[in-house]
């Protein structure tokens, strides 16, 4: 029978055993707190959850490899935040993370949320690595704490246009007319405006620009317009659901332009689309964030992501690499001090990563070495077609009907 006295002794012993790991940890370096902030609920939940997965995988890898060496093997402790797909909720999370004493923040996927979170973090001199957030305003406000590793929206669009012209010239200029289908928020409208301004300078005629809301339940009307316009190239600028419905409707209505060409998003940078719509995806071209296909670390990372039942989407590897960028800076700062980390980020030359970027060099918080890649769905897989240094297959342009 257990008396009260034996119960107490046993409990004390159990408590001692349970608390032992903490004692051990106290002897080694104190962990470095890093805020991992994404919209994991609400409209952007899918992308936000993908980003969080990427960040957690990176932190797991870094901790397994011995933590931060300059700080005596200190482990990274992730403070997870949910921006709820709203900028103000993102800001509130930054406030909480600041109060909890994080050394830096990685996040926050969407441009609108990044605009808010970087600004709030700036109040506290808190370094903020932007993982995706393509709007260029993010790095144009002179915030000293903000660092975007990936390419912005203008770089991507300009690159997309240059590459499209190159593809078309190489094929003997078969394409002359363009139709743009875009969603009606900041991303789609901005892309469409930039494209319809620049494409005519390169000899393309923009025949039609159609916008649609999110969600749009049916794309047959837009495709009917497309049939009457009969453009050589269709440029969609929308999110996954609408993109998928649009392409399915095009296939059903037997509209097959010489190319389907997306800027920042599309089937040729989405393994998910490839799996769900294999018949529709073939030949599609994207200019988007993409990894260096020749890097040996990609295949095992992709396999791990897929093991978890997720797709290896750009959100995952962009955030994964962003965490490494931050850790590289903490190693060089040899400190968890925010100002020291900010300085280390500003002078970063981080190059040991799986993205196809030139040397890292931050100018006003933007990594000038960053670039998107041009990918195409060829034989049921995503292949890099431009630039030559990363090419896996020759472009199919125009696509055979």
């Amino acid at each position, binding site marked *: 029978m257990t008396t009260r006295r034996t119960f107490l002794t046993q409990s004390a012993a159990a408590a001692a055993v349970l608390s032992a790991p903490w004692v051990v940890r106290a002897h080694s370096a104190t962990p470095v707190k890093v805020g991992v902030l994404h919209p994991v609920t609400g409209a952007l939940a899918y992308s936000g*959850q993908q980003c969080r997965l990427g960040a957690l995988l990176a932190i797991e890898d870094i901790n397994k490899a011995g933590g931060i060496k300059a700080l005596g093997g200190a482990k990274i402790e992730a403070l997870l935040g949910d921006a709820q797909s709203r900028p103000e909720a993102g800001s509130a999370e930054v406030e909480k993370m600041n109060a909890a004493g994080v050394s830096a923040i990685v996040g926050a996927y969407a441009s609108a949320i990044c605009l808010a979170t970087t600004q709030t973090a700036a109040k506290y001199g808190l370094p903020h690595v932007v993982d995706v957030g393509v709007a260029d305003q993010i790095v144009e406000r002179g915030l000293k704490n903000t660092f975007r590793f990936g390419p912005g929206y203008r770089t991507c669009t300009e690159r997309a246009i240059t590459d499209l012209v190159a593809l078309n010239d190489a094929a003997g200029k078969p394409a002359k007319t363009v139709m743009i289908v875009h969603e009606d928020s900041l991303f789609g409208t901005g892309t469409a405006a930039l494209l319809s301004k620049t494409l005519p300078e390169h000899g393309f005629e923009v025949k039609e620009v159609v916008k649609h809301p999110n969600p749009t*339940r*049916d794309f047959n009307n*837009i495709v009917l*317009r497309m049939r009457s*316009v009969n453009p050589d190239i269709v440029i969609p600028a929308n999110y996954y659901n609408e993109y998928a419905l649009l392409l399915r409707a095009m*296939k059903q*209505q037997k509209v097959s332009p010489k190319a389907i060409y997306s800027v920042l998003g599309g089937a040729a940078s989405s393994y998910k689309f490839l799996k769900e719509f294999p018949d529709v995806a073939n030949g599609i071209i994207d200019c988007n964030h993409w990894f260096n296909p020749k890097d040996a670390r990609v295949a095992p990372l992709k396999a791990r992501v897929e093991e978890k039942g997720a797709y290896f989407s750009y959100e995952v590897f962009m955030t994964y690499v962003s965490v490494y960028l931050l850790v590289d800076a903490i190693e060089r700062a040899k400190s968890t001090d925010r100002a020291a980390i900010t300085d280390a980020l500003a002078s970063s030359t981080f190059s040991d990563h799986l993205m196809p970027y030139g040397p890292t060099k931050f100018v006003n918080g933007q990594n000038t070495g960053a670039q998107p890649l041009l990918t195409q769905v060829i034989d049921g897989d995503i292949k890099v077609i431009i630039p030559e240094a990363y090419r896996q297959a020759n472009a199919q342009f125009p696509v055979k009907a």
Partner: protein
Amino acid sequence: MLWDPAILLSAVLNGLTTGAVYALVALGLTLIYGVLHIINFAHGAALMVALYAVYLLKERLGLDPYMALPFVMAGMFVLGYFLQRVIISRASHGKDENILLVTLGLSIVLENLALVWFKSDTRSIDTAYTLSTVEIGPALIALPKLIAFAGAMVVAAVLLWVIRRTDLGRAIRAVAKEKQGAKLMGIDVERVYALSFAIGMACLGAAACFLLPAYYVNPQVGSGFVLIAFTIVVLGGMGSFAGALVGGLLIGVVESLGGLFLGDSLGQMGIFAIFILVLLFRPQGLFGARA
């Protein structure tokens, strides 16, 4: 260019096929409103549940969405009966405003459960006929949409027959019109409530089977349909079945033509312009009885 008869015909046919599915969603909503006098805020969430059921039957058991129709309808019927009997009726304590909040709460619970189980990932199914089309004159109509139209018409006809010709239908109409009187005539009002709710949910089951081959499912998918369905119900006359059917088809065509001529962002305006006009000049709805 857009006035080309071939394109116009395509747009109208396409609108009719989309509208038929809207009508199915609206039929369920109008039945529940007509009998229980509650606005079922959980309608969109219930559609989402049905869509996930169709998705799981296809992905896990390989059951074709059209083959799954009887099972999903039956499942939704049972779920509806259970929801009304066990949750909505008990929690309402006989007050309509309580029911409103209960259904709103239900929708939040269902959506968040879906978020936990399925994540916010959008899913769609791939069938042999997903990309098939049928030529009707110069127009190409996607086969799944054509089947959805035919199926929706059959389900609507069966529902109308049940309401007009069967004892259950008579009981439902009696309860809808005069609860006290129906009770005095020996009709089990609570049972009729539950059956009406169940039939309304079964309509959603049918809508889900017709919808998924041409659409997708995620936890938020219902909200896109429920606003349209509310519009249709008010447009057709609250509680009117013929109104829901005609209203659904009308909204489908208006949305389609609006999208064609004004673009899809502005095209949605057409729906609400008609809605406002009906409220101004025929507030009881197209088929509603004058209050």
